[in-house]
């Protein structure tokens, strides 16, 4: 990482007018970046990371001003604000009115009356499945995940927050009201899921397992797994069960120490534009719902993303769990115990 950082710094010094972005893999798609680069005559230097902790570590190891924009879990924006990293965004220069209202996530993206992030993409951690291998009617309830009928046919997405959120929904808890007292019951539910699971995998492993038929159901899967594979494997689908699903959302934030704030804002505006939104939503890394209702998606792309069903999905989805640091640690420990359970 140090070496990569060294080399990246050299590049950054060589082209000081470039935009330097800390991103998730969906923003690395040339089909997304090239139109912006060509329109503005700049280069977008990107560095991918996974997990807010890893992203924050990169920032801490960098010099102030090294980075201009960052992609971040919407619920983690307050963490960046608390560290003094982000610059307030000008609301009047962003298409906030065009966003799905439920994904604006003002409780996270707005801190002390100032907007520090804007939701760019969202989706659901729910049940992803192969409709030719399972009964789609069963997938309308989270109870299927702990049923003997699907023992050994399940993979679990290896990220504790959304799957703990799903376990909470399965036992009738609201994701926004979770406390330490709920953890024993959540742990029991997770252990039941684990007993049915063949593997617990990160993005690539769980996606591959579902795509290759190693498993028929992915706990925590959703359009981000199935939509991108729709052409190769139209049998893959996702459901929003009766108990609900967990809404994930990613945001864009601008660094306070950015040396190219004007360009950074242009980049955010481009990503939030109908064209940018369509390209981001259908990125080669993973698909997801564009936050902007006016995204320039084709009819086929909208069908794959189940665009028209979003009002119903959003009404039934619950927010991503956003625990404080202490509860977050306890949730991760519950997850560790689940992984170690045989």
């Amino acid at each position, binding site marked *: 990482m140090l070496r990569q950082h060294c080399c990246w710094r050299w590049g950054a010094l060589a082209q000081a007018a470039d935009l330097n972005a800390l991103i998730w893999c969906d923003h690395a798609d040339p089909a997304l970046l090239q139109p912006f680069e060509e329109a503005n005559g700049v280069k977008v230097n990107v560095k991918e990371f*996974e*997990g*807010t*902790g*890893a992203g*924050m*570590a990169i920032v801490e190891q960098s010099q102030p001003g090294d980075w201009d924009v960052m992609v971040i879990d919407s619920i983690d924006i307050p963490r960046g604000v608390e560290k003094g990293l982000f610059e307030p965004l000008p609301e009047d220069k962003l298409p906030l009115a065009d966003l799905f209202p439920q994904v604006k996530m003002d409780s996270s993206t707005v801190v002390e009356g100032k907007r520090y992030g804007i939701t760019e993409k969202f989706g659901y951690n729910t049940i992803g499945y192969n409709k030719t291998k399972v009964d789609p009617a069963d997938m309308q309830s989270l109870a299927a995940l702990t049923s003997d009928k699907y023992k*050994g046919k399940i993979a679990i997405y*290896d*990220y*504790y*927050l959304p799957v703990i959120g799903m376990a909470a929904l399965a036992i009738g808890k609201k994701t926004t009201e979770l406390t330490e007292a709920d953890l024993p019951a959540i742990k029991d539910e997770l252990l039941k899921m684990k007993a049915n*699971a*063949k*593997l*617990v*995998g*990160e993005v690539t*492993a769980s996606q*591959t*397992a579902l795509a*290759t*038929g*190693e498993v028929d159901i992915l706990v925590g899967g959703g359009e981000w797994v199935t939509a991108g594979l729709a052409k190769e494997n139209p049998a893959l689908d996702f459901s929003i069960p009766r108990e609900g699903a967990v809404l994930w959302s990613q945001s864009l934030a601008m660094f306070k120490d950015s040396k190219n704030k004007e360009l950074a804002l242009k980049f955010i505006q481009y990503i939030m534009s109908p064209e940018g939104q369509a390209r981001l939503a259908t990125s080669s890394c993973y698909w997801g719902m564009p936050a902007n209702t006016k995204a320039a998606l084709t009819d086929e792309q909208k069908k794959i993303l189940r665009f028209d069903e979003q009002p119903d999905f959003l009404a039934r989805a619950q927010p991503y769990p956003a625990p404080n*640091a202490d509860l*977050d*640690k306890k949730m*991760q*420990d519950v997850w*560790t*115990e689940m*992984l*170690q359970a*045989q």
Partner: protein
Amino acid sequence: MSAAGNTGRALPWALVTPALGWTLLFFVLPFVAMGFSSLTAHDGGGFTLSNYSQFFANPAYWQAMVNSLQVTAIVTVISVLLAYPFAWILAEQVPERWQRLALMLAVLPFWTSYVVRSYSWLLVLAQNGVINRALTGSGLFSEPVQLANTRLATIIGFVHFFVMLLTLTIFANLKQLSPSYRKAAADLGAGPVRTFLHIVLPLTLPGIMVGAFLTFVLCIGDYITPQILGGNNELLMPQLVMMQIGRRGDFPLASALSIILMAVVTIAYLACARWLKIERA
């Protein structure tokens, strides 16, 4: 005389300084930084031992160390048992002129990316993979067997890699062995088995131990293979360390777990130290 003496004393230091500087810069300083980090609180508080006490208090963390030691021990033993005869065949049975080619073919897996190799094994061991197709196609099994995403898969991936490493160290040791030892043993009436057990094996033990130690160190600290092949159905120590960094960025706890892992490696080194000397006794 004095100038020559000073030069004589300075030269060894001059020669060793780059290595010392390298070690200081890329091992000692990071290690001290990691040690310092492991004694601080995640929330930015002061000195604390809680990162270490968490490891000893949480059975799930302990289990990761137990899993790591079990997997590493199994991999090391299997790799030695496979590599020794392989190295012996290469050193003793393959004609001298073919040895270089045979050795090159033996280490061919090293030439591919570690990650690619692990994913290749995943495809081989998967439900629809080569092995399961052969098993179900031949009628031996009616249903595919779960091979991928298990501890067995992790061990297979490791053994595939480390057999090559051990073969190299044992082969080098066998080639250094003078043929006169075996001739002398034969002159004294020892058969091939007795010669091997009492002469060849003890003399190649340093090579085995060096290879086994390298296998132990590399295996216990590896993140990629268990992550790709093990299916996260159990956690090993490197996975537990990485888990602390991903979302929470808990570097103090990750540092403490890493230092505990290093302590285990140090104990393993001390246990093997008598065989790890460069010169042969």
